């Protein structure tokens, strides 16, 4: 299949937008024959976490702010970029391990952890807005 044109979206900061984006990206990955588990677990959960962070943390749940999503899918990998308009949240600061006993009963604190466990690479940088880049190699 090679490479299609990247999927690009610009959505308002509304968590109800997340499922539709996830569905489109998963569909594109399915066309490139990603493994079933990547389609049902890795991609939807990690992308949902990234979008949720961008909407709620990055953009402060302000519907007037937007999130840009870019998904480039090849036969070898998926590269997702999720960009918000906020002033930046420090991914590295969110490093408390949610699996240690004293954190297990916390309601929050698992989003970044899941992104890191489900994706092969999680990076953050700024280019105008705050961008989180997720990479997953096709299995």
């Amino acid at each position, binding site marked *: 299949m090679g490479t299609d044109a990247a999927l690009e979206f610009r959505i308002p900061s509304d968590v109800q937008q*997340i*499922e539709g984006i996830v569905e489109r990206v998963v569909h594109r990955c399915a066309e490139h024959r990603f493994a079933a588990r990547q389609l049902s*677990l890795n991609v939807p959960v990690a992308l*949902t976490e990234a979008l949720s962070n961008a909407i709620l943390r990055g953009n402060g749940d302000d519907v007037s702010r937007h999130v840009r999503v870019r998904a480039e899918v090849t036969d070898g990998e998926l590269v997702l970029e999720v960009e918000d308009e906020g002033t930046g949240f420090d991914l590295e600061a969110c490093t408390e391990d949610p699996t240690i006993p004293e954190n*297990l009963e916390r*309601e929050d604190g*698992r989003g970044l952890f899941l992104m890191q466990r489900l994706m092969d690479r999680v990076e953050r940088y700024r280019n105008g807005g705050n961008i989180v880049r997720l990479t997953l190699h096709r299995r």
Partner: protein
Amino acid sequence: MSLHVSRHGDVVIIEVEGQLIVGNRQELKQQVLDETERGARKILVDFGRAGYIDSSGLGVLVSLAKRLRELGGDLRLANLNDDLQTLFELTKLDALFQIADSREHALESF
């Protein structure tokens, strides 16, 4: 996501159909809290027809389980598929919840 509520004796069974994620977790939270207001102390969440769960969904389950324990009750889970089981294992939440492989086994355990 939709929720289907039924009862088996004093156990309230809430079946989740679809994704349990940031945009809809409040529905599950409200449903469980409403049931506890009506006196329910044993809640079984059945994921047999669920899709994926995100960290918000996991978080709401954690807070609801804590609430049920404070009331002297319990919240248990059933019918996690392999993906959901993986999420619970990754986050070590399989140590926090009683998870049954079927609704029947879950009901027997209460």
